[in-house]
């Protein structure tokens, strides 16, 4: 039987704003399947975002949803989680929102290891504003503000998250749709700050400037560059050139989780009273 997405979609809120060929809808469906698999209670789940195309996702989901300001999702979400630690708090957004204007909040949420899940849809571009380069746009590529090719080197979001202290880091792609829900579900179940980067596509503002003739070509690129971590173990450095690892890249169950640590602060303060 086909999965019933409608029970998680707010009535009357579709169609969404995303362009034909955009992968954000695929990610949203993955998130919905993950929430459904885990039997999350809608009233006990907050989906928090910043600004951008990907950040419009919460408006469609039938939960407690918070569409904040550009880059600030992690900081708002931290407040929600601290006030209601029992809630499931899921962040969604794009690469520009999360790693440029929101970069500071992102790394500090990783450092605190606060029990939330951040899904970053990385389409290498600022889509909503018309295709300006982001910290994830590959060097040399074209954007509306890099007409001569992007001089900036890009971020590796997963490495950034691991380096900053996140304790669960995974990567998938919009092409590998069936893997997205599994990665997100595992991330939500993890006790700590979890990051799921989904490599995505923006045919409208990125693809056409960079000589991708069709959405299919962009999806095929995602298919071609992705190498599951298990498969990569058997490959040489040469074979891995230009490839991107997918799957669960990092997991640490030993680092203390922030809301639990703060509960201990309260215990210590009350014992000393």
């Amino acid at each position: 039987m086909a999965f019933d997405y409608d029970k998680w979609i707010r009535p009357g809120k579709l169609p969404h704003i995303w362009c034909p060929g955009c992968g954000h809808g695929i990610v949203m469906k993955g998130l919905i399947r993950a929430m459904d698999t885990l039997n999350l209670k809608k009233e006990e789940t907050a989906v928090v975002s910043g600004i951008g195309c990907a950040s419009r996702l919460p408006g469609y989901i039938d939960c407690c949803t918070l569409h904040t300001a550009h880059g600030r999702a992690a900081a708002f979400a931290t407040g929600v989680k601290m006030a209601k630690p029992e809630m499931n708090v899921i962040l969604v957004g794009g690469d520009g929102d999360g790693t440029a204007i929101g970069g500071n909040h992102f790394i500090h949420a990783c450092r605190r290891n606060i029990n939330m899940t951040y899904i970053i849809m990385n389409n290498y571009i600022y889509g909503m504003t018309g295709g300006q380069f982001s910290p994830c746009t590959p060097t040399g590529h074209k954007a509306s503000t890099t007409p001569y090719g992007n001089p900036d080197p890009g971020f590796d979001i997963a490495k950034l998250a691991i380096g900053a202290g996140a304790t669960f880091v995974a990567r998938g792609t919009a092409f590998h749709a069936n893997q997205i829900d599994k990665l997100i579900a595992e991330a939500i179940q993890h006790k700590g700050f979890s990051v799921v980067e989904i490599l995505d596509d923006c045919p409208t503002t990125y693809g056409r400037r960079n000589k991708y003739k069709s959405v299919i070509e962009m999806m095929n690129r995602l298919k071609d560059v992705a190498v599951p971590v298990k498969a990569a173990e058997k490959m040489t450095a040469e074979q891995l050139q230009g490839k991107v690892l997918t799957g669960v890249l990092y997991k640490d169950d030993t680092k203390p989780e922030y809301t639990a640590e703060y509960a201990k602060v309260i215990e210590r303060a009350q014992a000393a009273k």
Partner: protein
Amino acid sequence: MSKKVAFLQGNEAAAHGALYAGCDFFAGYPITPSTEVSEVLSAELPKIGGKFMQMEDEIAAMAAILGASLAGAKVCTSTSGPGLSLKQELIGYGCIAEIPCVVYNVMRGGPSTGMPTGPSQSDVMSAKWGTHGDHPAICLTPASVQETYEEVIRAFNLAEKYRTPVMVMPDEIVAHMRERVVFPEKGEIAIVPRKSPTVPPEQYKPYDTSFGDVPPLAAFGSGYKFHVTGLNKMQDGFPTTKADVVQAEEERQIRKVDANIDDIVTFEEYMLDDAEVVVVAYGSTSRSARFAVNVAREQGIKAGMFRIKTFWPFPDKQIKALAAKVKGIVIPEMNLGMCSLELERCAQGKVPVLGIFRVDGEPINPDQILAKIKEVK
């Protein structure tokens, strides 16, 4: 039983006022000269099961309190000039999304880093015009340590009652001086709770104006699910660009404050009955003004003081009435003329408005004010 008394600094009193008001979540970032608020609350909040967070920056602190408030907490942050500038976008978010919160801002010299340890009153315009767009503004300017304690409590009450950010802005002198504070008993000062929804979750709309200009606010995680955005929104919380809805919602947000000015605006009238010269003052400057008025009276000059306690909304009605009966208004302030602009607006050219403006990090002394009082003919 005698009341509890303490010798406190303004910032410490502010922290204790927040606790009396029921604050259970505070997020801040270290900044001179307001950091003592963080220090006291980091020690006191966990004792009552509340939470203190030192965030990665000023913006994050503002974001965290907004998030926590939406999840049902009573929230506060503290900062000073540069931090206030950084928080401004999200103060606007709090205004449009109608999220109760208290922003305690100690006024130091500016712009930019300015004089971090020097007093100033140059953030009063930022309190109203700092964030972009039209929005309601409430800003309280206490003049003593006791008043800082009480005004922080009132700020929480106003934030919850009108579902909007409220600022408390002592100048650095008030924030750092030490005075005797008499703590009220529990229940002595009424604490205003947030208006909660009375409808079942399926009927709830976060901006439902059938309950008045201040719609009830549910908390995330309390059985209600709803959407919050910084976009212009409809009553159900979802974004819209429909002209009539946007216009009506923007006007309602302003009306929350404008229609309740008499409930919000507070002031002190000192020797005004027969006054021919009125000194309008706020914050620590009013202490010099009171001294100057006393000396002027001893010298036979009919001077009085109108002390602004609530800077925003501005006490238009009271200033207009004064302008109709006095010969001149004297305004001492630690900026280059901010309150004076408002006074000129209210005086409408009927009486001269004489300013004493200092931005050198030194307080305005009574002699300066007395000399200006004598200039009024």
